[in-house]
């Protein structure tokens, strides 16, 4: 029989069997314990497989990376903080750090701001679902595909020849000469253009979540405000925005993490040239081109440390919300 068919059968039969079987097994194991301990132990037994996966695929590599970040390029001896010193003194990595900060700030403001704006505006229109679908669709494509698409948008051909890039062609229509967009690093224009690509993809995500939260705001509240004479801006600032704050916080956190992870767009569009380097790209370079595992791990650790405060804030907020409930 075709091996694939066998695998398919095993999956269809085996997976539910294993699932149910595991629960039954845990019940058998629990029989060994006194009655009052059972409710305390049961959750841990049920969590055990998920915890095992997390430990093997997440915790262990994180610890491994942390250890490697203190080792030399081949992992044969410990060199203390040398890799971190290198990270903060090497102009290439400092440039990457600076760019990541720009990504963080600009992308979050653009994504969340645009998402909020679109969600609020679209709420009042009849063709709401169509509009939302249009904005959301770019999220469905891969970042590499987005990079390729926008590479054409920003394309530059020599002045005087036919421009195939949308931006330069439009400028040509206005009589302005073509600009090599992705090469312009003054005022980080090219970095911001790369951020635009990522924003194009992720605004839909922000908009959808904010829109859902928006619909959760009680209509009576808004109507009462309007009856009392508040204009739209006052309604937005005084009622909608404060009530949306928890959602905005969650969305911002997600976008901040996505911005810090930015890699595909940079790799495909500029390969990090022209001062567009980001930490993830540097990490790949150190790891695979230079074969220096120590430095790559150090960069990964810096990224992790950068995200921890954001995560901590998020968890505190969740806890506060749980406490209210």
């Amino acid at each position, binding site marked *: 029989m075709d*091996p694939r068919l*066998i*695998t398919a059968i*095993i999956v269809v*039969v*085996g997976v539910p*069997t*294993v699932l*149910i*079987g*595991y629960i*039954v*097994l845990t*019940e*058998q194991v629990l029989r060994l314990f006194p009655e009052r301990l059972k409710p305390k132990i049961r959750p841990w037994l049920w969590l055990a497989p998920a915890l095992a996966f997390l430990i093997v695929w997440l915790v262990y590599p994180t610890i491994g990376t942390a250890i490697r970040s203190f080792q030399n*390029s081949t992992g044969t001896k410990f060199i203390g903080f040398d890799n971190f010193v290198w990270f903060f003194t090497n*102009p290439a990595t400092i440039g990457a750090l600076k760019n990541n900060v720009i990504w963080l700030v600009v992308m979050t403001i653009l994504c969340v701001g645009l998402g909020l704006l679109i969600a609020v505006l679209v709420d009042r229109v009849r063709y709401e679902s169509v509009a939302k679908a249009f904005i959301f669709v770019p999220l469905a494509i891969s970042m590499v595909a987005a990079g390729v698409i926008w590479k054409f948008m920003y*394309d*530059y*051909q*020599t*002045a005087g020849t036919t421009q195939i890039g949308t931006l330069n062609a439009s400028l040509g229509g206005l009589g302005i000469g073509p600009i*090599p967009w*992705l*090469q312009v690093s003054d005022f980080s224009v090219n970095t911001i253009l790369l951020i635009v690509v990522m924003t194009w993809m992720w605004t839909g995500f922000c908009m959808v979540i904010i829109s859902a939260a928006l619909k959760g705001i009680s209509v009576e509240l808004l109507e009462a405000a309007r009856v009392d004479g508040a204009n739209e801006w006052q309604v937005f600032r005084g009622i909608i925005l404060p009530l949306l704050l928890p959602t905005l916080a969650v969305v911002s956190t997600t976008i901040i993490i996505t911005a810090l992870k930015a890699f595909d767009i940079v*790799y495909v569009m500029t*390969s990090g*040239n*022209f001062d567009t380097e980001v930490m993830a790209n540097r990490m*790949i*370079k150190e*790891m*695979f*081109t*230079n*074969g*220096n595992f120590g430095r790559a791990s150090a960069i990964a650790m810096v990224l992790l440390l950068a995200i921890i405060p954001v995560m901590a804030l998020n968890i505190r907020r969740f806890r506060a919300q749980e406490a209210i409930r």
Partner: protein
Amino acid sequence: MNQRSTRPIGRATTLFVAIGLLAAACSSGTASVAPTTAPGTAAPTTSGSSPAPSTASLAGQTVTVIGTWGGDEETAFKAMVKPWEDSTGAKVSYTGTRDLNTVLTTGVASGVLPDLAGLPGPGQMTQWADSLVDLGGVLDKATYTSETSAPLVDLGTVNGKLVGVFIKTSIKGLIWYDPKVLTVATPPATWDDLQKLITDNKSKAASPWCVGVESGAASGWSGTDWIEDLVLRQAGPDVYKQWYQGKVKWTDPAIKTAWQTFGDVVANSYGGGNTVNATNFANAGDPLFKTPPGCLFLHQASFITGLGGFKTATSGTDYNFFPFPDINTQFTGAVEGAGDLFGMFHDTPASRSLMAYLVTAPAQDVWVKIGGAISANKNATDYPDAISKRSAELLANSKIFVFDASDLMPSAMNDAFWKAIVDYVKDPSKLDAILASLDTAQADAYKAQ
């Protein structure tokens, strides 16, 4: 919970669990058996001199190959291995990736490797020498050494072990032009003669030079070829050798002069720095064939004839070349070449057979005939046109032969070199800062060795 009611159910489902877990375990067991590995035989299946591919029964076996070639080059490689596939019944499974470094670095670390692989360069090959199979047992070394020029054999040898063979070479630094646009009665012998030729023909094209350095993650490499050719002819092969060994600093006046000359070329190139950085190396020469011509000359290796506008142009009538002129007549006759190194990671009968086939003249003739390749095997002479033949002869008869310097540098240095070219083309005024940063990269990259 009532013990009596759960007992029969408990027994049945426990049995189910056992079967399910067993089935899942068995399934993963069968899936993990790799179909390609077979016990290797001690004796090589064919000698390097036999013209026909091995006819040992390899039917149904697959050899996995990874290389950087894509598009036209990939088609050419597949045509090259087809006779072998037809005669042995085995199959070649080729994957092309520009990210060869990444794939092989992870492969060497994890043990998941293809059977044969194109190697990025002799410098990188040295780092992986322990994982590569000694080809002395696969090829007839005597025949290989007699059929291949000595420098190429040496480049593939690490500590006496032959681990890399060249299946294709190229000669770098040829100056291409369109004979319909300008006539070159005698090729310029010196750089000054070339400048005179440019001045005489200035009106015939928008600018003297076409340059294009874009190439994805490897952007900048065609600029490095310029610098290497200039260093070779301005400072000589000894400085060149010490330079790629990391013993000559980048801020050294000899190297700086080369960069400055390249800067002059970029300043006089079609579209200026912006276009140079935005144009892919394969299409950089297209303005040669435009009406009116965008440029007079393109500096590129022999393999350009298979790419971009050269593909559809007619050899001899639409394009021709002359070798890079001397700059310092002390170093006349110097030629820079490069090649595609191949190595073997898994010793299987099918891989041995394929490797032995790839170094033979008939195999290399296939690609040579398609165009854009020069064979590493001296006996492969099936060149499709006079131009390819001339470039092959130039390579074979070179007085001073050197290999592409950036391919011989450690990969970190090579990468910094590429980036430096891109930065320099963008802003030539930053030359000193760029060279200083290259020095820092050099100190870092070579100390690991």
